[in-house]
């Protein structure tokens, strides 16, 4: 692929990486969040501190981990602590600036479902469950959500509220006791949504190149609020794409030879 073209996944990773400030402490999950955080670290944010929930603090993996507890995360970490400690002293202790989350379902207030489709007692689809998400969402100073936009994911009503966003909107999160600000950005394959300052309803504020508002509305399961002024996501620069593709190639080569 020439340097000037890019995939949706690449754009999402680049856009998520742009949200991270140099020096941020970032609680990272596997997949796109890990790609985005390491991309930021390898480009504009060399002092980004990556924490994985397996207990590695300040890890600097050369290739992307395939699991949250890959060996390279420990080898390149400043410190390795127990899982109870990472959740108590570091996440709950208020040391995390940015938490990344995804989900199977999201509602207009950024609440997340990763538990079941259908009823809890007789689920149609049993999903993996909460993992670290409820406390990441509550304790990280900010949360970034990354997920692909379609009406089955962006739903009018969650089948199950696993992880809090802005709850029922307005000041309901502020009253809940959650210490962090909540999901400040939802980065999708179509654009970016941000909470309304008052109602906290997620509002389309940015479109990826070539995407129009109707396409985003069609991919959203509720009547989507759209900002008056819509930004357009800048196309990734050649350099960041090169770094991203190198990282992915290194990762693929390393994992192919890992057995």
């Amino acid at each position, binding site marked *: 692929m020439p340097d000037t073209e890019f995939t949706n996944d690449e754009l999402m990773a680049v856009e998520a990486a742009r949200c991270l400030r140099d020096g941020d402490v970032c609680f990272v999950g*596997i*997949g796109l969040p890990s790609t985005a955080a390491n991309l930021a670290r390898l480009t504009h944010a060399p002092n980004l501190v990556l924490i994985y*929930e*397996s*207990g*590695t603090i300040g890890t600097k993996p050369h290739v992307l981990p*395939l*699991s*949250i*507890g*890959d*060996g390279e*995360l*420990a*080898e390149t*970490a400043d*410190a*390795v602590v*127990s*899982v*109870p400690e*990472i*959740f*108590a002293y570091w*996440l*709950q202790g208020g040391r995390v600036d940015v938490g990344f989350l995804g989900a199977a379902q999201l509602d207009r207030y950024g*609440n997340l479902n990763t*538990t079941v489709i259908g009823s*809890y007692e007789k*689920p*149609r*689809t*049993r*999903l*993996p*469950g*909460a*993992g*670290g*998400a*409820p*406390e990441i969402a*509550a*304790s990280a100073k900010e949360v970034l959500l990354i997920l692909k936009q379609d009406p089955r994911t962006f739903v009018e009503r969650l089948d*199950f*509220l*696993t*992880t*809090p966003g802005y*709850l029922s909107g307005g000041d309901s*999160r502020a009253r*809940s*006791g*959650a*210490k962090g600000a909540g999901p400040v950005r939802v980065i999708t394959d179509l654009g970016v949504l941000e909470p309304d300052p008052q109602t906290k309803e997620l509002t389309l504020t940015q479109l990826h190149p070539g995407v129009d508002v109707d396409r985003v509305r069609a991919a959203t399961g509720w009547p989507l609020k759209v900002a008056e002024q819509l930004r357009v996501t800048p196309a990734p620069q050649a350099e960041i794409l090169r770094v991203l593709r190198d990282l992915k190639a290194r990762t693929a080569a390393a*994992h192919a030879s*890992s*057995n």
Partner: protein
Amino acid sequence: MPARAERLTLAQAVSRYVKDGDTVALEGFTHLIPFAAGHEVIRQGRRDLTLVRMTPDLIYDQMIGMGCARKLIFSWGGNPGVGSLHRFRDAVENGWPRPLEIEEHSHAAMAAAYAAGASDLPFAVLRGYIGSELIKHNAHIKEIACPFSGERLAAVPALRPDVAIVHAQQANRAGDVLISGIAGVQKEAILCASQAIATVEEFVDEFAHPPHSIVIPNWVLSAVCLVPGGAKPSYAHGYYQRDNAFYIEWDKISRDRDRFSAWMEENVMKAPAHA
């Protein structure tokens, strides 16, 4: 006076310490998952277990699919980086091969519950579950007020399994065990359980104390078993890497009941016990 860890074969240790109906925690957070021990539990036909693990992973998918479990206490039940645990899903969604009761937590709560168990406290306190509907479906999550500020927090009961099983890199002659790299909740699992078994890659005369390593004294372990490769297809830092291809392949193997059963028959039931 506590007993010292006895050097047993894995078959002996499982036979002696894991009983039908027990609450059993096989821990290892992505790293050092005690697969060989789980397979031995399956081979010995244990039933009605309450399985405890933050991330059930493939090992509990196999144990659930083989009918060992009555109940699962967990916080994230997926195939890491791949997708679903199909045997876990089949048990929850369709009751196959038997219904599976679940007690579901978040990672933070489960980690705190292990630490509370290790501390012989009846419960753990955390800033947790704020706004989450898990509270409605799990009677083991309650609210507790700070006796000083009145602030409301979450409480969960301590985990106190009958048996904990972990895999580690090394044991020395005395039976002390060295874990290096990501240590997860293994120390807590050992200390909160009534009995604890460690399988190890090798016995050594003396530990080299690599960075990021912890030592578990022999007198908090019931048995130490030599099981090289005992964490495969997960990994053992310094010994072998994670078999990512198998994790991907498991998605196909486990999707179908018959293919799963045939694979387990061939690869677990007929496999020799570790001597």
